[in-house]
């Protein structure tokens, strides 16, 4: 691992313990997508995950907007990391993030007014999404540009994946469609509750249940296997 503690130009504060750069590997990308999935593992960004996943298109729009802001703000934070004084870093990150959120806000308004109306205040609220500030503080402020972009992309796609897995289930049960395409006959009975806020909680809970059940089963198998090996030895 490349040690580079001389990166820190700020002489007033000592270099933090974890301030070491990591090389760009496949793990940089995969981690945010799966192992540290923002919604299913880190339990961050719950507000948009519950509020705007009542249809696939909303989930996709929200996920991609957040990914865009994540990558751009991460890149800028990483690029400026040696110029931003530690004392005012949070304020600086917020300014950077807010800039890109404004860009996204106007972009969506220009591309699709319908989507803009559906997402409502949640686009502006990307500013306070803790995934973005968390990535800026925990990763972008310490890492080189390229790994930051790759890691942000992974995290953003992980967030999008989580929103999509909520959005598709809710739209499928609530309307019988995916991305607005009817999959069943016209007679389909929508589950109204799935479009309403409680549906978000139910579907999120069901996914978390599923992932935890899988994790527990895997862990149990691992201990069983090591147990067998230990007995054999």
């Amino acid at each position, binding site marked *: 691992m490349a040690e580079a503690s001389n990166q820190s130009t700020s002489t007033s504060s000592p270099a933090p313990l974890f301030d070491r750069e990591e090389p760009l590997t496949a793990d940089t990308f995969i981690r945010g997508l799966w192992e540290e999935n923002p919604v299913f593992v880190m339990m961050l960004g719950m507000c948009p995950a519950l509020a705007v996943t009542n249809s696939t298109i909303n989930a996709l729009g929200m996920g991609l907007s957040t990914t865009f802001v994540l990558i751009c703000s991460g890149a800028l934070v990483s690029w400026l990391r040696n110029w931003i004084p530690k004392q005012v870093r949070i304020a600086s990150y917020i300014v950077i993030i807010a800039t890109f959120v404004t860009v996204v806000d106007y972009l969506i308004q220009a591309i699709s007014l319908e989507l803009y109306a559906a997402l409502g205040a949640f686009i502006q609220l990307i500013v306070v999404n803790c995934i973005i500030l968390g990535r800026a503080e925990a990763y972008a402020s310490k890492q080189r540009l390229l790994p930051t972009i790759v890691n942000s992309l992974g995290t953003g796609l992980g967030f999008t994946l989580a929103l999509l897995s909520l959005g598709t289930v809710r739209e499928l049960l609530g309307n019988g469609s995916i991305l607005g395409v009817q999959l069943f006959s016209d007679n*389909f009975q929508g589950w109204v509750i799935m479009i309403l806020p409680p549906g978000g909680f139910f579907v999120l809970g069901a996914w978390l249940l599923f992932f935890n059940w899988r994790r527990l089963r895997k862990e149990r198998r691992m201990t069983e296997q090591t147990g067998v090996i230990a007995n054999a030895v």
Partner: protein
Amino acid sequence: MPKIIEIRTSPHLKRAVSVDRIMRTVVLALLPIAAFAVWQFGLSVLLLLLTTTGAAVATEWFFARASGRGNTVADWSAVITGLLLGLTLPPGFPLWMAAVAAFVGIALGKALFGGLGYNVMNPALVGRAFVQAAFPVAITTWTPAFAPGRFAELIPSTLTLPFMQPIPVADWIAGLNMDGWSGATPLAMQKFQHIETPITETFTGLIAGSAGETSALLILICGLWLAWQRMLDWRIPASVMAGAALTALPFWLMDPSLYPSPWFVLCSGGLMLAAWFMASDMVASPVTARGVIIYGLFIGVLTVVIRLFGGLVEGVMYAILLGNAIGPLISDWTQPRVYGSVKGKQPPAH
């Protein structure tokens, strides 16, 4: 063989009351109500009750197995949940929706909390609340009681294909040529048209409504028998009914043409069934003697408040779910004073 003298502390005489005995007795008390519902609404209700009970038992079996708690079907509690749920649904409710309700009730209302004894809320009402929010139209579609040929044919909406909209029943009802059928339950007629159904009809239950909620008289008899068997706490239904009647009384005295009379409040809708068989759920109600009275009054008052001022016609389901939610708090407030302890002082630690 040497004789063994067992020395134990009191109580020396014990009655063999086990969970499955209590549950079997409750099922027994529910059977007349279920039979009346089948007689009143026909084959559809029989299928409805079988579906909810079957789905509830299957869900219980699956989750008990998956979580390694062994087979908990034998304690009969899932049968009660299924039966109660079926009795609260409209007679022509599509069977697939009824199965969804039973699954959600057991899975979300019970298995998730750890099974019988740990559920915060009444599982049957959790299931009903879910389908009330998911299928608001189907759950307020009523069919007339004592339709001719009710033992020969099903209500059309009963056999709706899964995930499809219920088959419309309007034409079927029109074909029955039933006099005086307005498509509304007594509660809805009172709320929106201020026409109060005569007390003799609501009391005996010869009216439209959910499958098992119509006959206040029959529910009263079955409930009293259960209370006499000491299988339910009589304070709960008594205080629910007192709370509801006392809240309705002042409004009725102010304007009898607009507000329902206290006896109409007691005998209409699901209040009687809910007070005797759902509010009295042993797990979800408070455990102290003073606590259950507060709990019952809370449910009764809330039911009437929702009925009179809410958008919904019937409020007893949400009232009980809210009552269940504050149940543990009430138990905590109303802990009896430890004998010999001084008021305001903590009892010494054991």
